């Protein structure tokens, strides 16, 4: 009943609007409160059902504004920190709602795979209609990319914390190979809950229209690891180190997918060996170069000797 009254009030308001010159609000879509967030809070907050329902109807009648005095009796929700200048703390943008749907959808991935069905189940878990999954692409790529960026964020936080501990002197600074090994292992362990469906995810990421985004996420992750490892190179080493680590990461990931040993011991041993190889490769490169130089000099000497012997060197 309140809804009907509010609806008719709103329509009367619309009638007034039509009389004036129509001004297109380029900013208005993000400013308007998402009704879904009011619905979701209603679902999660049993006690405050009534005031929320009526106040969410009110906000459609009044002129869309940033502040609704007395709208939320319990004060700003702590999970929505004030992001973006246009929204007050209680409203969330479409982006935030999309992130929430994707996070909720991750639970359904083991059952449905990385598909639009999992996203639909996630939307239903949040109290929205399954049709909300139409907001995302139908191949499920946005779900995978969301998961990847979540993992990368978690990894950065982990490495940041470790660095703080080292700076405060509470932990020993690890040698480079140990550090890389731990970082890659930590990152790969985040994939373990979804390991059964991970091959599907990788194949979707390899599709041409997904390659730019997946590649950028991968490279930013590798960059993060090397940054916290203390890499400050400014020459060709910057590129070679990243390329080598990317190769190690990708191959270890592939090994992990067909690994059936307890707690993936085989995978970690493989990782250890590859990193050891990479370390040795640096030394070997130098050795090869000096050996090469020595060989070239030897050949030059041999050539001169032969010339001397055959008398080509003499001027006649």
């Amino acid at each position, binding site marked *: 009943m309140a*809804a009907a009254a509010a*609806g008719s009030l*709103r*329509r009367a308001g*619309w009638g007034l609007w*039509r009389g004036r010159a129509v001004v*297109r609000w380029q900013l*208005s*879509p993000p400013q*308007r409160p*998402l*009704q*879904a967030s009011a*619905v979701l809070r209603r679902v999660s907050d049993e006690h405050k059902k009534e005031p929320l329902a009526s106040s969410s109807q009110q906000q*459609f009648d009044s002129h869309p504004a940033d502040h609704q005095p007395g709208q939320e009796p319990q004060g700003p929700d702590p999970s929505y920190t004030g992001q973006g200048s246009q929204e007050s703390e209680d409203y969330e943008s*479409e982006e935030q*709602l999309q992130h929430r749907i994707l996070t909720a959808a991750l639970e359904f991935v083991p059952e449905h795979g990385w598909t*639009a*069905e999992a996203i*639909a189940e996630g*939307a239903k878990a949040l*109290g*929205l*209609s*399954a*049709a*909300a*999954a*139409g*907001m995302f692409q*139908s191949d499920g790529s946005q779900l995978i990319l969301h998961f990847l960026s979540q993992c990368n964020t978690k990894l950065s936080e982990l490495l940041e914390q470790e660095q703080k501990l080292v700076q405060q002197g509470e932990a020993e600074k690890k040698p480079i190979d140990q550090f890389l090994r731990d970082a890659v292992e930590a990152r790969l362990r985040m994939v373990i809950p979804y390991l059964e469906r991970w091959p599907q995810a990788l194949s979707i990421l390899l599709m041409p229209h997904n390659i730019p985004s997946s590649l950028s996420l991968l490279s930013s992750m590798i960059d993060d690891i090397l940054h916290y490892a203390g890499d400050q190179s400014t020459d060709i080493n910057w590129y070679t180190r990243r390329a080598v680590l990317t190769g190690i990461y990708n191959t270890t990931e592939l090994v992990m997918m067909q690994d059936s040993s307890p707690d993936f011991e085989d995978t970690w041993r493989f990782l250890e060996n590859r990193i050891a190889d990479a370390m040795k490769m640096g030394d070997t490169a130098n050795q090869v170069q000096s050996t090469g130089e020595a060989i070239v000099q030897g050949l030059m000497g041999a050539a001169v000797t032969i010339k001397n012997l055959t008398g080509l060197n003499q001027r006649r």
Partner: protein
Amino acid sequence: MSGLSPAGGRAALCLSLSLSRRRGALRGFAAGPQTHFGFQTVTEEERREKSERGGGGGARSVQPPGLRAGARLGVNQVFESVAKKYDVMNDSMTLGIHRLWKDVLVRKMNPSPGTQLLDVAGGTGDIAFRFINYVRSVRERQLQRRLKHHQNLSWQEIAQSYQEDKSPLGGSQVVVCDINKEMLKVGKEKAQDLGYSEGLSWVLGNAEELPFDDDKFDVYTIAFGIRNVTRIDLALQEAYRVLKPGGRFLCLEFSQVSNPLLSRLYDLYSFQVIPVLGEVIAGDWKSYQYLVESIRRFPPQEELKAMIEDAGFFKVDYQNLNSGIVAIHSGFKL
């Protein structure tokens, strides 16, 4: 008043305007806000009661039961006269391409089993039947996948699986709503002929005032119908009202062509060929004249997108089919 060329249309416009003004004075009430009926500018009352001009002589239609006063007899009259030949005319006018457009719409919708669809102005049921087919095949795949996992089950699990929902549609429902009884009748007959029985309902109703409760449907579609609505903003608000939170609004409609060469060919085809086809196949020149003119008067893609956003929808976007001849607008109630 054949009105083939725009000039002829304008002459008819002056004539109809003067006639309508005189009629308004006779009736003694103020002429209401102006709107359009094809290329003619008329009052809203006129558009609703446009029987002499639109129907081309012939009996005034009896007002269908259940509609409020001010029912749109004019548009009603147009569709009553074309209801029986609607599908045939669609095929001949668009050379059968309208089937592809409707297929794209349902594929874009990507419905899962359990979806509640409201198809407004969907009289002959094209979208409804495609929806049912799509959901049926998705549901079959779902059940097959479940069967694959059912190879090594205990007796308890087998007993449980008998209690599971195995219905072929998985709880999906379509409500087809139309303002015109004739179109619904044709739709019901088609459903019987094609063998669609479950999951379908046929409701008589006006898009500007839907006879449904709030927050009822997952998806609201209106295919080639929003053009005929007098107050598009009201229809959009009603769509917003009846959709669940998270629900999707989809609108398939003729729109403006951006490519100038294609636009010239399209205009030529529309004004020269389509009314002739209408006369030959359905025996009704004027209705198809109205159709083509209403397409030209309809707001272009960006304007319709803005109107949908005004109604409260988020993530509003449109997809042009055939470079703008037809556009699918989509919005979410978030």
